[in-house]
């Protein structure tokens, strides 16, 4: 093949995608960075000029920032732990010889397709509402006082909703990985007298490591930006009890119209995501080379 020609053709074919993504990445990021050093409020037009590190000091010094950061980590970490552990157990169960496996797969994956605001509203009103929710009825049936989940355990409630949405995804991916494990390998181990725990530890776990990495990567990408679930349930409250970084930036920049401080928060969010990204991309890059 005429390699020079192919190379040119391939450059031309890639150009639109590369250019569009470059613009998408650079323009808003540079603007966010620029705004973050400006005094810029949509409410108070008198506030102008260079702010230096003012916005950053304001954002980072604000107790709500520290809390949002901690909440973000708890939210991502909590959902990851629940979905990975739960997903592994559920995948192991669904991989057993059971009746109706095909239908079960479909039922189990369903929550993944429910749009986040709907998921949040179902849980808020149908399940966790102290008066009308199913959990409230259940508590009453046992003679207990219904729990006002979103006021008493706001962050935990959000974690439950998000975990419900992502558990199916983790389960499906891990189940697919499990099913690709060759039967002979398992049987050979069984013949050699490996018990269930040993088989899980020495055969299944190493086989699943790669899929678990992928699940962590994909979920983390989405979990860092959890927004709708918080918006329609707690609104970030009470106080800042369930505010994550994404919601904090939205609240500061868009609701309070403080562009400067909101942008500073955005820059911090980007930095956090990048730290996470570096680790994840390394892991995935290694895994995908195979």
């Amino acid at each position: 093949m005429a390699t020079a020609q192919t190379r040119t053709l391939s450059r031309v074919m890639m150009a639109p995608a590369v250019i569009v993504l470059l613009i998408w990445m650079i323009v808003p990021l540079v603007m966010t960075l620029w705004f973050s050093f400006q005094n810029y409020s949509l409410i108070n037009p008198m506030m102008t000029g260079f702010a230096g590190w003012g916005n950053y000091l304001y954002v980072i010094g604000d107790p709500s920032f520290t809390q949002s950061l901690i909440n973000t980590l708890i939210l991502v970490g909590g959902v990851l732990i629940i979905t990975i552990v739960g997903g592994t157990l559920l995948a192991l169960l669904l991989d057993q010889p059971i009746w109706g496996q095909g239908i079960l797969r479909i039922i189990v994956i369903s929550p993944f397709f429910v749009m986040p605001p709907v998921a949040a509203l179902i849980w808020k009103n149908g399940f966790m509402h102290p008066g009308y929710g199913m959990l409230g009825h259940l508590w009453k049936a046992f003679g207990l006082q219904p729990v006002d989940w979103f006021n008493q355990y706001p962050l935990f409630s959000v974690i439950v909703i998000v975990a419900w949405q992502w558990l199916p995804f983790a389960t499906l991916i891990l189940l697919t990985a499990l099913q690709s494990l060759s039967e002979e390998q398992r049987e050979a181990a069984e013949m050699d007298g490996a018990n269930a725990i040993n088989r899980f530890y020495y055969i299944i776990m190493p086989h699943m490591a790669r899929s678990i990495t992928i699940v962590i990567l994909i979920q983390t990408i989405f979990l860092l930006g959890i927004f709708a679930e918080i918006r329609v349930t707690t609104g970030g409250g009470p106080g800042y009890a369930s505010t994550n970084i994404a919601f904090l930036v939205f609240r500061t920049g868009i609701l309070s119209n403080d562009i400067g401080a909101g942008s500073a928060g955005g820059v911090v969010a980007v930095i956090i995501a990048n730290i996470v990204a570096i680790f994840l991309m390394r892991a995935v890059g290694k895994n995908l080379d195979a």
Partner: protein
Amino acid sequence: MARTVPASTRIGFTALAWLIALLLFSPILWVLLTAFKTEAEAIAASPTFLPQNFTLENFAAVQDRSDYFKHATNSIIVSVGSTLLGLVIGIPAAWAMAFAPTKRTKDVLMWMLSTKMMPAVGVLIPIYLIFRDLRLLDTVHGLTLIMTLINLPIIIWMLYTYFKEIPVDILEAARMDGAELWNEIVHVLVPMAVPGIASTLLLNVILAWNEAFWTITLTSGRAGTLTAFISSFSSPQGLFLAKLSAASLLAIAPILLMGWFSQKQLVRGLTFGAVK
């Protein structure tokens, strides 16, 4: 597959699996059942499982309240439009990377995926201001543009993995037989790529349909999609459980059906073929 286990073990596993699956499914079941109940029944102190007075009035009420069909139309335009636009940009790029890779192809792919790691809040404010100045706020085409950009990396990755699996030998054989480049593309490559392109299309429509961050922040009434429409139910206008369920059911049903049919491809697509 053909593992022999005692029937009792099998029954035990089956029962446990169904119990857990139904528990996970119960919120969706709740929506399905509540949507056909009257408001009074939905908030009754002693809940009923099946609707006692089966009614369709909730669906009519949802339409009256804030025009479901307009929001559904917006959702369809934005999710289908952004996916098609993404495919137009993504297919050539993925094609080039799969069939004419250079030393840097892997880096380019990694970089593209990394743009997906950029948190939306990091760019929300500039996009909001740019959209305001260009009068793109609360417009369907503005939203379609954003949705294309956020899903483009996934589209390219998915297509790349699918294209990668097309054996190069077949291309070479076609060339040996004297096929022109154009014929090669139309008669050999396209037919083999169609399933991959179809899965990519399907999954990205699902992702775009459910996207909530940008629809909530960039639209208000006019260009609102179903995610924005549903979010408006969170405001404290009383607890209309039955109507909320009807609206929710209408919003999730199309994608739930699509998802069920495409769940096999979903694994391959969403993990970029890394899990098979």
